[in-house]
């Protein structure tokens, strides 16, 4: 396969065949980046409710306490944690630190991420 980036490569993101574990790390970072960017825009718009006074803000907070929004918030937390921890690995390996152990770092990061996401999941849905 050619290594030059092209629009065809976009569709290969969704093809799970023959993919290395490092490639999964890269894809997770890209997908979570897109999700977090969308959330960031929505978050800025939502904060605009603050300028409309207490009633508008409290009405919005009541809306986001809906379980559907809570699931969405958990997805945002999951994306942030995965992107952040995987990003640290990418940052370190970019400077040549721990390149030999990058697969181990990816697995370790995934385990830590899973622990944090489960903690927030229990906390948000009343388990803690």
């Amino acid at each position, binding site marked *: 396969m050619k290594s030059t*980036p092209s*629009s065809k490569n*976009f569709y290969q993101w969704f093809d799970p065949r023959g993919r290395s574990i490092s490639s999964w790390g890269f894809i997770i970072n890209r997908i979570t980046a897109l999700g977090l960017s969308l959330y960031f825009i929505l978050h800025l718009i939502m*904060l605009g409710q*603050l300028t409309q006074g207490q009633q508008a803000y409290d009405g919005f907070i009541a809306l986001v306490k809906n379980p559907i929004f809570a699931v969405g918030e958990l997805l945002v937390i999951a994306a942030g944690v995965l992107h952040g921890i995987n990003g*640290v690995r990418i*940052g370190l390996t970019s400077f040549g630190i721990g390149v030999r152990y990058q697969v181990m770092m990816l697995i370790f990061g995934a385990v830590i991420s899973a622990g944090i996401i489960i903690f927030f999941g229990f906390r948000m849905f009343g388990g803690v």
Partner: protein
Amino acid sequence: MQSSISPKNHENALLWFIKLLAGGLIFGLLVVHFIVNHLIAPGGLLTFNDVVQYFQNPFVLIMEGCFLTTVLVHALLGLRSIALDLNPSPKIIWYLNRGLVLFGSLAFVYGIWLLIKVSSMG
């Protein structure tokens, strides 16, 4: 068969380094943001009065302003990297660069205005 997807793109080293640096700063600032807004706050969300009171603190204003700036820089450079993966034409890259700078500038002005407006509501 290994995937051909690779992090290589046409991003220059300086922009890549700025993105990495901003990512590192976000990691630290996000921990503080998460603890204050979602762990300390009852039910995981601050009330209106709590938010206004929180933004009265000048240190918080500076911290949230830095957070906004670093998130914008990191997010927009990251979106540019993803777009470059698709190997767009120079003309599209030209529009993309200007579009991202325009969006980033507007979002920055809006975010700073929001910070100042909320802090003055108390």
